[in-house]
């Protein structure tokens, strides 16, 4: 029983037209919307976790449909090579220009190789690979599974005694978890190559120094940090894409909305998880 008169002095309340019960005032609506954010956030985590539970439960059970796993890896991994490579190339090139330009101001352009290498392997490669995979493959997976849901194809699987989580969700989670790290490696290679091209061939840095700095500063730990992130991201975006498709409703329009949510949720999840994983690995950042 909330009253919508907090804003108005008590005396003027009776002059106001009575609010229709279904339409509370703007303050109440804003408050509701604010309260809804954490409520929806945790409800959503609950839904995703329950789907994950089912995926684990069915993932370890026979039959193992290796064909489907490979198909999903092909779709997520092989299918994303071009877009991830292209992104890596341009990120590397832009980074090269920016760093040389910035570091020249205090005569430190020799260090560009080190910074490029660290930034790419630790951060940029996993984050950008995951974002690209999510917008390319994640959205497509949501659309595919979602349209199967709204046209009863998922129910048809169930009635044919094929568990739809096992058939549709498990292969995609496996593929996402394995493929995003591989794409991240590719991103690393192409990104560093892109930076090298710009620094050496365009901005006339010394090739030997650039490569030396990359080698000297980037160690296995940095690569590992990036790959751990890539594993976490790949797993998460596949799970989110499946969750949105699997519980889609409301016909074609509903599938469109689910696809939209899939991309937005994935991006938010990547950024939040990036902070959490970075903080845990480096032991800094308060976690």
């Amino acid at each position, binding site marked *: 029983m909330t009253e919508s008169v907090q804003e108005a002095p008590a005396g003027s309340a009776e002059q106001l037209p009575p609010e229709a019960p279904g339409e509370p005032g703007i303050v109440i609506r804003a408050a509701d919307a604010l309260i809804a954010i954490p409520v929806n956030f945790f409800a959503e985590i609950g839904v995703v976790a329950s789907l994950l539970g089912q995926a684990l439960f069915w993932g370890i*059970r026979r*039959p193992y449909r290796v064909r489907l796993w490979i198909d999903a890896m092909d779709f997520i991994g092989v299918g994303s090579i071009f877009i991830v490579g292209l992104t890596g190339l341009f990120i590397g090139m832009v980074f090269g220009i920016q760093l040389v330009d910035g570091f020249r101001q205090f005569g430190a352009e020799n260090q560009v190789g080190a910074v490029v290498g660290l930034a790419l392997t630790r951060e940029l490669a996993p984050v950008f690979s995951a974002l690209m995979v999510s917008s390319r493959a994640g959205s497509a997976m949501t659309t*595919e599974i979602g*349209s*199967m849901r709204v*046209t*009863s*194809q998922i*129910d*048809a699987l*169930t*009635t*044919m*005694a*094929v*568990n739809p989580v096992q058939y549709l969700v498990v292969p995609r989670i496996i593929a996402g978890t394995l493929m995003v790290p591989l794409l991240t490696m590719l991103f690393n290679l192409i990104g560093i190559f892109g930076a090298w091209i710009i620094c050496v061939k365009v901005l006339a840095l010394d090739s030997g120094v650039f490569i030396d700095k990359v080698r000297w500063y980037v160690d296995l730990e940095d690569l590992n940090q990036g790959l751990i992130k890539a594993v976490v991201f790949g797993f998460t975006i596949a799970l989110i894409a499946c969750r949105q498709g699997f519980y889609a409703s409301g016909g074609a329009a509903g599938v469109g909305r689910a696809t939209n949510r899939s991309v937005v949720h994935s991006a938010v999840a990547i950024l939040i998880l990036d902070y959490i994983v970075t903080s845990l690995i480096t032991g800094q950042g308060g976690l």
Partner: protein
Amino acid sequence: MSDPAPAPDPVQIRIDGVEKRYGEHEVLRGVSFDVQRGITNVIIGASGAGKSVLMRQIMRLERPDAGSIVVDGQDIVPMNEVALTKVRRKFGMVFQASALFDSMDVFENVAFPLREHTKMRRKEIRERVMARLEDLEVAHAARKMPDELSGGMQKRVAVARALVLEPEVLIYDEPTTGLDPITSRTVDELMVRTREQYGVTGIVITHDMASVFFIADRINYLYEGRITASGTPEEFLASEDPATREFLEASGVGTSAAFAKRR
């Protein structure tokens, strides 16, 4: 409840007091009837009466809020998904909207249950699938994708897919809705033939009354969330229940005993 006698219970599925609501909307309010073994059990009812919802409970795509659904002595209402997977192999289902896998062609759709549940060789699968497709006169479309087919052809492929594993119980949700009268009759004949050939138990939801009196061995009338009348077509036509009479009259068969005599 379970019957230890060796002779199979004439009742294959015993549905008792099944209730299902969505929010405030009570769709099923205590549905009770028996699905008799080896014959075609038809469920009729107005559009929106909850026939599809009832099917979803019988297949346990959803869990009823109350009641029991006993399949061959086992109540499937409290079962978990692992146990249900075994029970569901007894069932084949044709959805109202066909629900063919749109990523697979017609052949692959029909082969799918065989690939999932049998160890058949490629050649056997090919033969069985093509035989089914020929039965339904869609063999020429074997390599087409579902979205290249007319609605009627899609339905026939869906019937072929449901039949391919020779299930004990076949559930059809409005198999003839949206088909032309000739194709409808083909599907009706197919349902009758399948029952005779394999002795399958049929559950058919329909409001195509011409089809009902052609295929039905028993008719169950779903009205206001309950089965209000059950019986053979003859008993059904003779029903005194006002709601049943109204439905029959609206379908144009209320007075024509000729339909009953055809059988």
